């Protein structure tokens, strides 16, 4: 490996890893409270992206559009909960997997609705940061680095810390964990459990909006992001351990760095990259069935 390769691996590992982690954080928020995975998370990113696109096209500055999109996307999150989870009533998510089908359905429906009502074209969004103190990007050993890359990396880590603090230090976080452990007991303790669940979906929507606006300069706003990016990020979340916030970030980086390293070997090694990642994924699940940072549930008899 020469220095270009090393820089390339570092840059692409960090940026792609952050992209995956950013999306994975949304999965985690919902899972850590409800023990379900919102398979519509990828579609929520697409929806948020289209909302932001509509706003910027109307001439709203990107920073204001970001704030508005976060709010709108939180509402979308609540809607997803209303449509996909609420009708199922009370159920044990570990044995009854109907929620996989309903959240998946909502994801597909929303993508198709966008395709029908708006269009299927990829759309650009202006970057949040053009320059940092006049720095508009540079090349290190022939590898391009832009302020957008830097922003993605930093905001992912900031979001991770923010969510951890929210979960560990605040009353809301305590309510989240109480609902996750035993919903019935939590509701007996005076926690409005359905409000807490709704809250996590709203937060997941907000995270999706931040992700959508941050990623748009790199990945555009497009329908294909929904399923593919969604599933890749989801695999990252499972790898790191669903329910663990730092697990999502570690999982994202693990996949991104593996992929970057495999790609750097030779021209033709890129074709083996998905297989290597799949093998890594299976391998980790064989050793730790609940992911790297996941805690397996104890079986009660």
């Amino acid at each position, binding site marked *: 490996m020469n220095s270009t390769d090393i820089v390339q691996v570092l840059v692409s590992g960090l940026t792609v890893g952050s992209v995956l982690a950013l999306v994975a954080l949304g999965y985690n928020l919902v899972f850590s409270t409800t023990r379900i*995975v919102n398979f519509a998370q990828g579609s929520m990113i697409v929806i948020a992206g289209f909302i932001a696109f509509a706003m910027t096209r109307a001439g709203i500055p990107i920073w204001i559009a970001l704030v508005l999109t976060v709010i709108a996307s939180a509402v979308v999150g609540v809607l997803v909960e209303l*449509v*996909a989870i609420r*009708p*199922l009533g009370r159920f044990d*998510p*570990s*044995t009854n*997997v*109907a929620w*996989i*089908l*309903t959240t*998946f*359905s*909502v*994801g*597909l*429906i929303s*993508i*198709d*609705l966008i*395709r*029908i009502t708006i269009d299927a074209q990829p759309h650009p969004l202006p970057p949040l940061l053009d320059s940092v103190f006049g720095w508009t990007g540079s090349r290190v050993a022939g590898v391009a680095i832009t302020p957008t890359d830097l922003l993605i990396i930093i905001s992912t880590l900031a979001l991770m810390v923010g969510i951890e603090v929210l979960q560990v230090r605040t009353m809301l976080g305590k309510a989240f964990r109480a609902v996750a452990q035993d919903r019935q007991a939590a509701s007996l303790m005076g926690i409005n459990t359905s409000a807490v669940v709704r809250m996590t979906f709203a937060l997941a929507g907000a995270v999706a909006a931040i992700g959508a606006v941050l990623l748009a300069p790199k990945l555009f706003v497009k329908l*294909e992001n*929904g*399923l*593919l990016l969604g*599933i*890749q990020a*989801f*695999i990252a979340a*499972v790898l790191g351990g669903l329910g663990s916030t730092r697990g999502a970030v570690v999982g994202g980086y693990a996949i991104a760095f593996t992929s970057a390293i495999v790609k750097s070997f030779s021209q033709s090694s890129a*074709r*083996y*990259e*998905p*297989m290597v*990642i*799949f093998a890594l*994924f*299976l391998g980790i*699940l*064989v050793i730790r*069935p*609940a992911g790297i940072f996941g805690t*397996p*549930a*104890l*079986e009660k*008899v």
Partner: protein
Amino acid sequence: MTTPTIPVPTAPDKDAGPRFDVAPRQRRDVRGFVLRFLPVGLLIVGILVFGSSQGTNVKWIDLATEALYLGAAAVGLNILLGYTGLLSLGHAGFLIAGGYAGAVFGPGLMQASWVPAFVQTNSAWFGVPFAFVIGALMGTVLALMCCHLKGFYLTVVTLAFGVFLPSLNEVAREQLGGSAGRTVEHYADTRNAFLARDNSRAGLYYFAALFLLVTIFVTWNLTRSRWGRAYMAIRESELAARVSGVNTYWAKVSSFAQSAGICSVAGWVAAERYLSVQSGGGGDVQNQSFRLVIMVVVGGMGTIAGPIIGAFALTFFFGLAFVQDTFRNYLGLVFGVLGLVTVATAPEGTMGNIRKLVDQAKLRRTKRGEATATKPIPSVTDEMGEPRPRQHDEALPTDLPVLEVVGLTKRFGGLTALADDDLTVRRGT
């Protein structure tokens, strides 16, 4: 459900120890017999009528072929989803794998130079066994690596399988044809005069029909065997299945392998139907798998007729809709809405609701005092009703304790539930 009559055993049960007396032969339940085989009979008649009347209409016969192989794939998927209770969102991958396996190994391998000349053939039919074996093998390998996982983690692995599968295409680009896919030899293109006789589309249609019937037969047998019951037990409570002597890991793997094998053969038919096979892009496998799952759910999980009804209804519905090609854009929308509505309002699907109606009708008739046909309760000899201790090959010493526990300790985190306990249980006490 299970056979209402106890057939007369003709051979003594080898390992059960004492022989049991022959149970009195029950009168054949004619009405039950007819009701049981009526749906299959109707299906066969329908297939023959449709085949003879529409055999030359390429558009309809192709659509029917599609319905038949999707029906078979849905029945196969139902073994995993409906009976074993495991949700896979990667089974469309096996349809693709089956198509490729049949195309690459079937006629290709049968023409290799080391195959004796009189066996050599370029007939695409030889792809069928390869599709089945390779599909089942892939299913086994995938299942071996994910069946130790709890709950939806298994679904996660199948999702990942769908992401990874198209990349195989890049690895073996020469054989599989890259992202454009590869063409498949027409099943009638063969030097064998007998096989080449029928080159109409109807040949494939009849094969698909036969395949569906075989799938029904196999699933029927499965649900009435110890294996099918073990699968259902895993669905209901894996814990209880484990302590009841079921190797749940192997049961899950075998269920996975069966459904993968059946889906792969369906994939071979699909490849012949389109005369090409491709792996699709990112997300395609998941989308198709989801549609297959919805077919099963809409029809009714855990029944044989349900998946077939679901597959037929949805295929023909879209067959009509495809008159205008723009409808293809609505696939996700329609299946998504169907999935949402079914799961939320009728989780037991069409068949489940039919069964409910039948039960309610029965209940009403019983309330009105009319006799309803009930299955007879077989009576058995007293000997069969006696609990028996295990018969051992060698006589065990009488003073040997059945259970001896020495220094047993069990801790849960910081809590010690058992501390260094001894327990001896003598035989027959």
